[in-house]
């Protein structure tokens, strides 16, 4: 039941995520027609004439390719800010403003749903606000908002609410986690509106959106293969074209848009992981059924022996025990389907909507997938019954009547190893290991259930460690003021006049030479791994700090780059900034970055990109308001907002995490319960003999406690190791270029997992004691004499 339920619930999430990804970005009436290639100028804006001429040149110099140009649109996208009221104070939150007229490519997505309404902005004081913002900040059509983009604040009227491809995963640039309400905003203005807001000339742009006929294959960051060769070659061709006219332009496909890539990775990850999770649960269920059937056969051994003695053939006994699990499986499956469709699927859909913050349109799990889940479940369940059925059919009636069918001896090795121990301890160890295969199955099932529980705990802890360490401990700044490239003077003046410490900071996109995958280069003034000296403290996993001004630029790379590109300390590599290739020497590797990052000395990076800063990190004295920063920057990110974002994300997922953890504990309990009860049942004769001979319940309880302690401890340790290895393996399958994450085997969690299994095992001692107490010794003695 649980397997089918989980399969339908997770399957629903996976198919919903996948369908949403396909349908939203489709080149259709309902889709937003996602571009296939982006040409971006990260340093400045092109004039209207330049934009038109670039599209013209791309069109006329179209490389030889089977892919056909459909449309080339220029677009202006600027960092900025939105003024909001919070606790009676005015707060400036970072924002991104798009100039979007009624275009053909990358339209605002306004599905027919409660989320979205109104119309596109047409006048130069109108804005369509992202629905994440209007919902989170309770704004509505008709409201007037104050926004800025580096040239003072202006009032705009909200005329619509909708979503945009770049912000479906509503994260602050540089982060993957959906922003907490009131910490980030995006809006879609008319082109003229954004030009007026930023005080730049008509037709200016910093993006060219290139749409091809149809949707060509594109290279997936999650695989080593190049899936979209044609598109890759086309990008190289367009890059060559752009090198001739704008050396700063970078060209990329959809994997360069982090929100698009996030949704793709989420859908792909869910599609990959739901069969694994479902399979895991079904296998555990099958082991449970297998063990339960063995228990059933054990309790029915005498009846089977009587039937066999009366001449009933084996072939007549087997079907019953094959049909039993099928019956159990069928009932469980029916309940699983009902609960999956009525609770699991809607629950997962609600989680998707809550997490991503967009409404699910056409969410469903295909009937074929449900049929597949049912079929696989029933097959596994059927296989789980074959061996017990075979065992039942092959019971020797004489052995059963003599009680010999339950007698299994431990191995000679264990007998020898325990020979010198006190007999009670030796017997405890021997009786625990009499059925090593069953014990191995039990440990395997416990390991799988611990994987369910442990993977959640390890992931949460590792993520929390990374976020807390990465932001709370390692970021010594309070605010990050974004500026137009090179426009840092205003912020520096503000900092000096407010006694605020500051450090210039460069964040600039690049990519490994000959590789379209995007990475971020960061320029820092100070490098440190601890303390308060540097605004940003790094976690150095290997190597040392770079030295500025070397003939070959020294850098640190994050461990994700080392993992995906195989780069290591001491290597010389080359990365591309638009058409400019720069040779670097890797002197160290950092950890803790989710996105791919290369750290430069800011002076080195400034020389490469041609400006001193893209933002300023500020440590603001207590009591000083950052309000004035809005006048001199294009956006402000508060450190506390980043932390709140993560906390909010964790809270949103808490219910899901708890459900999975609970499931893991329940499964571990059922599996251990079955095995330990069977162990006890098989020892009924032994225990009854000892009771008849006067063994006190307290001594037998101690023996059982020892057995359960040993099994619990070994099972717990094995389960924990399994959980760590499994979680690392699962994570290694999920990580990709845009999302790299290492699982830390936290000692506290490892001990906790072991303790859970140990406690479950020990809980069986009172049950065993009760069972012995209830044992009818007169009946047992009668059985011994029969």
């Amino acid at each position, binding site marked *: 039941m649980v397997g089918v339920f989980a399969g339908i619930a997770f399957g629903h999430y996976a198919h919903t995520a996948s369908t949403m990804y396909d349908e939203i970005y489709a080149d259709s009436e309902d889709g937003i027609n996602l571009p296939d290639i982006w040409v971006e100028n990260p340093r400045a804006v092109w004039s209207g004439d330049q934009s038109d001429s670039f599209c013209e040149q791309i069109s006329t110099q179209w490389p030889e390719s089977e892919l056909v140009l459909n449309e080339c649109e220029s677009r202006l996208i600027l960092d900025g800010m939105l003024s909001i009221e919070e606790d009676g104070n005015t707060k400036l939150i970072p924002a991104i403003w798009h100039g979007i007229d009624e275009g053909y490519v990358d339209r605002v997505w306004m599905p027919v749903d409660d989320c979205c309404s109104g119309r596109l902005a047409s006048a130069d004081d109108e804005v369509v606000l992202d629905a994440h913002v209007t919902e989170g900040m309770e704004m509505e059509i008709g409201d007037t908002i104050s926004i800025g983009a580096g040239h003072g604040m202006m009032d705009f009227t909200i005329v619509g609410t909708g979503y945009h491809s770049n912000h479906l995963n509503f994260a602050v640039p540089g982060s993957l986690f959906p922003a907490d309400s009131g910490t980030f905003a995006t809006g879609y203005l008319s082109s003229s509106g954004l030009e007026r807001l930023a005080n730049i000339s008509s037709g200016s742009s910093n993006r060219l959106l290139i749409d091809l006929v149809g949707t060509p294959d594109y290279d997936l960051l999650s695989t080593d293969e190049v899936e979209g060769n044609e598109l890759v070659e086309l990008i190289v061709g367009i890059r060559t074209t752009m090198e001739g006219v704008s050396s700063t332009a970078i060209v990329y496909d959809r994997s360069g848009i982090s929100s698009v890539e996030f949704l793709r990775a989420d859908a792909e990850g869910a599609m990959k992981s739901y069969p694994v999770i479902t399979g895991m649960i079904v296998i555990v269920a099958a082991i449970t059924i297998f063990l339960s059937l063995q228990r059933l056969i054990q309790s029915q051994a005498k009846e089977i022996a009587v039937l066999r003695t009366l001449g009933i053939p084996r072939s007549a006994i087997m079907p019953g025990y094959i049909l039993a699990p099928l019956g159990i499986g069928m009932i469980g499956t029916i309940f699983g389907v009902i609960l999956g469709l009525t609770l699991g699927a809607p629950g997962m859909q609600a989680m998707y909507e809550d997490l991503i913050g967009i409404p699910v349109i056409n969410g469903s799990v295909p009937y074929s997938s449900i049929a597949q889940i049912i079929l696989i479940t029933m097959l596994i369940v059927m296989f789980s019954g074959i061996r017990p059925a075979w065992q039942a059919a092959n019971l020797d009636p004489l052995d059963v009547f003599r009680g010999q069918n339950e007698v299994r001896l431990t191995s000679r090795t264990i007998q020898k190893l325990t*020979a010198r121990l006190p*007999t009670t301890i030796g017997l405890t160890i021997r009786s625990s290991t009499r059925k090593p295969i069953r014990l191995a199955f039990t440990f395997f099932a416990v390991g799988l259930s611990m994987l369910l529980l442990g993977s959640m705990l390890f992931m949460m802890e590792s993520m929390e460690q990374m976020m807390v360490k990465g932001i709370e401990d390692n970021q010594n700044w309070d605010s990050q003021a974004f500026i137009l490239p090179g426009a840092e003077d205003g912020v520096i003046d503000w900092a000096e006049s407010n006694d605020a410490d500051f450090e210039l900071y460069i964040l600039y996109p690049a990519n490994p030479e000959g590789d379209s995958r995007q990475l971020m280069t960061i320029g820092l003034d100070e490098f440190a791994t601890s303390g308060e000296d540097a605004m940003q403290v790094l976690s150095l996993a290997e190597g040392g700090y770079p030295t500025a001004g070397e003939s070959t630029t020294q850098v640190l790379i994050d461990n994700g780059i080392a993992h995906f590109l195989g780069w290591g300390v001491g290597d010389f590599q080359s990365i591309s900034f638009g058409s400019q290739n720069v040779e670097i020497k890797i002197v160290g590797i950092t950890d803790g970055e989710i996105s791919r990052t290369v750290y430069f000395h800011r002076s080195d990076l400034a020389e490469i990109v041609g400006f001193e800063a893209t933002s300023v990190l500020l440590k603001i004295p207590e009591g000083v308001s950052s309000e004035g920063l809005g006048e001199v920057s294009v956006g402000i990110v508060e450190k506390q907002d980043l932390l709140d974002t993560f906390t909010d994300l964790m809270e949103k997922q808490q219910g899901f995490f708890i459900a999975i953890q609970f499931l893991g504990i329940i499964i571990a309990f059922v599996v251990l319960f079955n095995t330990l009860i069977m162990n006890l049942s098989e020892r009924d004769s*032994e225990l009854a003999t000892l009771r008849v*001979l006067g063994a006190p319940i307290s001594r*037998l309880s101690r023996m059982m406690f020892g057995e359960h302690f040993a099994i619990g401890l070994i099972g717990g340790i094995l389960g924990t190791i399994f959980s760590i290895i499994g979680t690392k393996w699962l994570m290694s399958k999920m990580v990709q270029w845009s999302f790299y994450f290492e699982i830390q085997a936290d000692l506290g969690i490892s001990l906790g997992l072991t303790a859970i299994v140990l406690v479950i095992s020990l809980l069986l001692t009172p049950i065993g004691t009760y069972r012995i107490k209830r044992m009818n010794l007169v009946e047992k003695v009668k059985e011994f004499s029969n």
Partner: protein
Amino acid sequence: MSTQLLEINGLERHYEMVSGTVKALDGVDLKINAGDRILLLGPSGSGKTTLLNCIAALDSPTSGIYTFEGEKVPQNNTEEMTTFRRENIGYIFQFFNLLQDLTVLENILLIQELSGGRDEKRARELLLMVGLEDEIERFPTEISGGQQQRVAIARSLAKSPKLLLGDELTGNLDSTTSAMVMEVLVEACKAENITTVMVSHDESLSKYANRVIRLDSGRIVTDDNL
């Protein structure tokens, strides 16, 4: 004059069945003296095993009085009954009931440990007494049925019980082996000064007893000193 070990007066044990009440014991009066070697004989359903179970404090009588060394034997309290057995009773089963995963010696040591004190020297002496000194490291499956029953005898003597009970203890053995086992048992009980009560269908075992009690329909019909 022998001292009295136990006394039973008006002992009844009834079972409620669908078909009505079955009187397995129907007013049994019995006195057993220290050193008695009693053989309980009777047809199936005569109540001999029920009587043995009541004497062993495995079962609680429906009514009647049962005293052991002048003390009332606990009833309807499994732990008190177990303590009584541990302190006073040795028990030998028809099918030996040795723990298969323990060696001959370990089977005896286990009972000692569970009864409060491991005494390997005594365990070895008991095995010598029953003629199994060469088999102490063997497992039950590696020795014959007769040898297994001798191990069971040694095990039952391990904690020096005052009363040794045996339920069809030769029922699973051939006549030659039965004779050997019974001789060992008698000698061991004489050596340890232990009173014995054995249940059997086998009249030929009378020669190992000094008192034969016959039961029928839950009542003692004869009680003969030999």
